[in-house]
């Protein structure tokens, strides 16, 4: 029995505009600048914050360090770090802390200079990692992209999915990116070639990076960051903007196991919990903010979230139903996504931010009368150890 509650809402958001800070700003400064703007967006200030969330990617004891840097005195500190989905986990935990009466105003921040620090993320060597299995794996030279490519290869094998179908994800997000001035600026700053709406032929004709994934199926590596402010119902009703309620959340993990099905993610477990708590179904969702590290990530997650059955994602995405101005499916990554707008390494916070913009009516690819959104983050690697965080958002 669903018991939809409205105990906590996102009341402030900010996406740091620059994707190339040219070494002039550090990640902590991006976090602080974004936090101040998000608090101002909500009509709140530093001293209102009593709960801090940080993905602990910057330093050990990050909950302590970031509180001092911001100059706040939180009584709830959460440094859950599970990769790019950390912010969906944070939103889930903030809802619980607020519901329990432990906090009234929660602050989530992210900042990264992955681009200007020239972090070799996608095609790096994977030597000397920190995961338990790394001493068994690093000899093989599996790039991060190849990890996702192995999911795509198996999906194609099991279900007949094609590169042309996967390309639908890339063309839909680029379609949205071209309407978002910050995304266009990002692609210019990151020296994308031939910046325009793309076709299926463009995507499958682009350079192969790790079979079967082409260049235009891979996300960018940018600088960037952002902040999200979550508040109790009491606080939210006095905030500057329309509250966007957190209606349901789900969290799960998955990792390599003997005999496991590579074509399903931990989202299979997190999504039903979140949808169940919210008391809504995928068919009711207007906006799907789904972590698009690669085309295959979205295809897999659309299935795992229940928009279509496992294996049917390829046929389901055909014909452009994921575009904001088409019917028959949710609008996908209306900011342009990690593929074409913003991916500084951990994209999860932007999923929440753009979902909020849509539910407020502030998106550059606005869906008419958008009422319900899902933000689903995948952290780690889809074809390996990863985490899934699903958050259902709605407005009054």
């Amino acid at each position, binding site marked *: 029995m669903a018991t939809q509650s409205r105990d906590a809402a996102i009341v402030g958001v900010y996406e740091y505009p620059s994707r190339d800070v040219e070494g002039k700003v550090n990640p902590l400064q991006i976090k602080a600048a974004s936090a101040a703007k998000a608090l101002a967006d909500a009509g709140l200030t530093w001293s209102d914050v009593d709960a801090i969330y940080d993905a602990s990617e910057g330093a050990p004891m990050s909950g302590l360090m970031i509180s001092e840097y911001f100059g706040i005195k939180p009584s709830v500190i959460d440094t859950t770090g599970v990769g790019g989905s950390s912010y969906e986990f944070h939103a889930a935990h903030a809802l619980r802390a607020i519901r329990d009466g432990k906090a009234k105003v929660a602050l989530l921040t992210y900042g990264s200079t992955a681009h200007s620090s020239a972090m070799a993320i996608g095609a790096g060597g994977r030597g000397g990692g920190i995961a338990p*299995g790394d001493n068994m794996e690093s000899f093989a030279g599996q790039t991060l992209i190849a990890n996702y490519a192995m999911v795509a*290869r198996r999906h194609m094998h099991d279900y007949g999915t094609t590169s042309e179908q996967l390309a639908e994800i890339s063309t839909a997000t680029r379609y949205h990116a071209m309407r978002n001035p910050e995304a266009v600026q990002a692609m210019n700053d990151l020296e994308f070639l031939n910046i325009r709406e793309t076709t299926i032929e463009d995507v499958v004709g682009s350079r192969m990076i790790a079979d079967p994934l082409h260049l235009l199926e891979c996300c960018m590596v940018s600088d960037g960051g952002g902040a999200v402010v979550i508040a109790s119902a009491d606080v939210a009703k006095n905030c500057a903007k329309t509250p966007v309620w957190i209606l349901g959340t789900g969290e799960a993990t998955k990792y390599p196991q003997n005999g496991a099905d590579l074509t399903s993610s931990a989202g299979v477990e997190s999504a039903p919990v979140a949808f169940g708590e919210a008391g809504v179904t995928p068919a009711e969702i207007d906006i799907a903010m789904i972590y698009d590290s690669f085309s295959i990530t979205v295809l897999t997650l659309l299935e795992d979230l229940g928009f279509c059955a496992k294996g049917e994602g390829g046929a389901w995405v055909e014909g452009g139903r994921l575009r904001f101005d088409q019917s028959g499916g949710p609008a996908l990554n209306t900011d342009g996504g990690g593929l074409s707008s913003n991916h500084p390494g951990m994209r999860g916070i932007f999923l929440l931010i753009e979902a909020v913009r849509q539910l407020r009516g502030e998106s550059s690819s606005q869906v008419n009368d958008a009422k319900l959104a899902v933000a689903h983050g995948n952290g780690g690697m889809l074809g390996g150890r990863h985490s899934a965080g699903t958050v259902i958002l709605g407005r009054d």
Partner: protein
Amino acid sequence: MAEEQKKVPTRPMPKLTELDTADFWHATKNKEFKYQQCANCQTIVWHPRAHCTGCVDGDLQWKTSKGQGTIYSFSVVRLSYHPFFRSKVPYAVAYVDLDEGPRFLTNVTGVEDPLTDVHIGQRVTLDWEEYEELSIPLVKPV
């Protein structure tokens, strides 16, 4: 001459000192692929570690694989920034299901063209790449 040799990039090598996996890597010197099975609950534990993931009173025993398996999935890497692998593109990485159960990550060797000669479901056998202290378990088609 020694200077020149130092500059040749090498494959990232496993650490023989890593406590969970040291026994596995020491056995590879004799081209043995060891894996663990719990005598109590029969769980096959992969990657190697000191505790059983299937039960809390586990009794892990080392077994030796016959070295035959099937490719579960693969990708052919075209772009790598790693100094060693950069010189190897295009090369195939694969998850291989050994007949005894463990699924491990490796490279597929012994094919003329990885773009056309590697397939899901392909039967493979271990193809050891030998070094002084250990060997790396690659696979080649049967």
